[in-house]
C-alpha cells in the first residue's frame, strides 16, 4: 500500500467534504424547520460562486485586486450578503405563500425555483464556462516518496480551516444563542413557538439566510479551488450535498457536517483507487442505499419522540 497516495486522497477528500458539508447544512436546517427539501439550494450555492467571481472582477477593474487579503475578504462578504438575499427571496417568493398547503406544492415550487435560478444565471451571465484566475497558489509538500509527493495546497488549508471555523461558530450559534433556540423551537413545534412570542416567519427567513450564507462561502471556495464555474454547477453539488445531509440524518446539524465529510472522502477515494468516470455513481449509490436501509441517516432519529 502506498501511504503517500492514500494521504493525498485523504487531503483531497477532506477538502471536498468541507465544501459539501457547508452546502449540506442549508438543506438540513431548512428541512428541520419547515420539513421540506429546498431543491433550489444547489442554485444558491452556484449563485454564491458567481457573486464571488463578479466581486473579484470588480476588484480587478478597480485596481485593488493586487491587495489579496482585501480582495478575498470583499469576495467573501459581498457574496455572503448578496447570496443571502437570494436565499431570503426564494423563501419569500416560492415557499411562504404555500405554507400550510399540501407538501407536494412546496416541493414542486422548489424544483421550479431551481430551474428558474439556473436559467436566470444562464441568461444573465451566459452559458459558457467562466474562468477564475488562481489567486492563492503554492502549498506544502508533506511527504516525498519515490514515485509520489504529497501536496497540501494553501487553498486546501484555507478551505479546511475556514470550514472548521464556520462550523464551530455556527454550531455555537444554534446551541447557545436565543436565535438558535428559537430556530430549534420552531423545528420542534412551530405553533408553540408562536404562542411564546417567537416570530416564526422571521425565524424561518433567518434559517434560509444562514443556509445561503454558508453555501455562498462554499461557492467562493470552489471558484478559487477549481478555477472554473458555470451556471450548471449547482445541480451536481446540490445533489451531493443533499446526499450528505441524508447520509448524516436529515435535520441533524452534526449529521450534515459528518455526511459532507464522508461523501467527500468516498468520492476522493473512489476516484483515486477505482475509476474517476464513475465517481458520481458512488454518491448516488450511497443515496439509494441510505434511503432503503437507514432513511434516518447516521445521526438522525428513527422516529419522533413521544411528546
Amino acid at each position, binding site marked *: 500500500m502506498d501511504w503517500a497516495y492514500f494521504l493525498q486522497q485523504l487531503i483531497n477528500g477532506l477538502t471536498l467534504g468541507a465544501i459539501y458539508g457547508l452546502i449540506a447544512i442549508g438543506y438540513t436546517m431548512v428541512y428541520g424547520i419547515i420539513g421540506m427539501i429546498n431543491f433550489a439550494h444547489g442554485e444558491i450555492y452556484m449563485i454564491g460562486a458567481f457573486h464571488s467571481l463578479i466581486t473579484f472582477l470588480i476588484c480587478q477593474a478597480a485596481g485593488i485586486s493586487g491587495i489579496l487579503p482585501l480582495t478575498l475578504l470583499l469576495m467573501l462578504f459581498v457574496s455572503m450578503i448578496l447570496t443571502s438575499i437570494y436565499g431570503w427571496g426564494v423563501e419569500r417568493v416560492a415557499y411562504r405563500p404555500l405554507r400550510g398547503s399540501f407538501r407536494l406544492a412546496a416541493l414542486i415550487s422548489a424544483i421550479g425555483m431551481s430551474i428558474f435560478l439556473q436559467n436566470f444565471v444562464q441568461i444573465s451571465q451566459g452559458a459558457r464556462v467562466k474562468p477564475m484566475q488562481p489567486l492563492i497558489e503554492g502549498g506544502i509538500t508533506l511527504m516525498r516518496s519515490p514515485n509520489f509527493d504529497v501536496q497540501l495546497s494553501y487553498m486546501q488549508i484555507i478551505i479546511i480551516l475556514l470550514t472548521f471555523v464556520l462550523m464551530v461558530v455556527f454550531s455555537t450559534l444554534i446551541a447557545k444563542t436565543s436565535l438558535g433556540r*428559537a430556530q430549534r423551537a420552531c423545528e*420542534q413545534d412551530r*405553533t408553540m413557538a408562536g404562542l*411564546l412570542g417567537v416570530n*416564526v416567519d422571521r425565524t424561518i427567513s433567518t434559517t434560509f439566510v444562514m443556509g445561503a450564507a454558508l453555501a455562498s462561502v462554499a461557492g467562493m471556495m470552489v471558484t478559487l479551488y477549481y478555477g472554473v464555474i458555470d451556471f450548471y454547477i449547482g445541480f451536481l453539488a446540490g445533489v451531493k450535498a443533499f446526499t450528505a445531509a441524508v447520509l448524516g440524518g436529515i435535520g441533524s446539524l452534526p449529521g450534515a457536517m459528518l455526511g459532507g465529510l464522508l461523501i467527500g472522502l468516498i468520492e476522493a477515494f473512489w476516484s483515486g483507487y477505482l475509476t474517476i468516470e464513475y465517481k458520481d455513481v458512488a454518491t448516488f449509490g450511497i443515496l439509494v442505499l441510505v434511503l432503503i436501509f437507514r432513511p434516518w441517516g447516521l445521526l438522525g432519529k428513527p422516529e419522533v*419522540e*413521544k411528546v
Partner: protein
Amino acid sequence: MSMLKIEGVHTFYGNIEALRGIDMEVNEGEIVTLIGANGAGKTTLLMTCCGSPQATKGRILFEGQDISRMPTHEICHLGIQQSPEGRRIFPRMSVHENLQMGASTQDPKYFDDDLEMVFDLFPRLKERISQRAGTMSGGEQQMLAIGRALMGRPRLLLLDEPSLGIAPLVVKQIFETIKKINREKKVTVFLVEQNAFHALKLAHRGYVMVNGNITLSGTGAELLANPEVRAAYLEGGH
C-alpha cells in the same frame, strides 16, 4: 374592567364551524373556567384568543385592544401566555431551555428572578433543570408548561386542561399552584377543564360550552349546584 372580552366569535376549520358566536369575558384578577365535553370547542377558543387560528367573525378585546387580527407572536407580547392542550413542551430541549423559551418576550434581566419564582412554585423542575423535557413524566411536563408560560410574565394566563392524563395527587398540587399564581402573583387565569368539579371549586366564575356555543354561565358555586351541570359533567365523579 374586563381584561379579556370575547364578542360574537366564530371560528372555522375549513368549513367546519367550531365556534358559533361566543360571548364571554374575563375580569382582571379572576380565575374563570370554561368546561364542556370533548370536542365542544374549548381548545379552539383558547387558541383563537392567541390568533391561531384567527376568528372568522367577531372581536376579541384584550385590555380594550382588538387582538382578533393580530399575529400570534404579537398577542403574546401583550402579556397573554398559554399552557396549551397536550402541554407542547419542546421535547428535545432541556427544562432550562424550555423556560428560556418561555422568557422569549422578556428582558433577560428578569430571567434569574423569574426562574427562582418558577422553581419556588414547582421545586420538581429545579431538580430536573438539565433533563431533556421529553423524557419527563406527564405531571412534570405539565409543571414545565405552566412554568414556561409564567416566564413570559403574563397578565393573562390561559390553561388548557392542565389535569389531563396526570395522577390525581399531582392534579391536586397543580390546582393549588394555579390558585397561588392567581392570588400571590396577581395573574388573571382563564382555565379550560374537563375535570369540572375541581375547576368550578377553584374558579370565581365559569362558563359551560356545548357544540361551539356558551350555554350556561355563573359563579363557580352556582354552576356546581346547577342540576344540568351536575348531570352532564359531575355525575359519577368525585
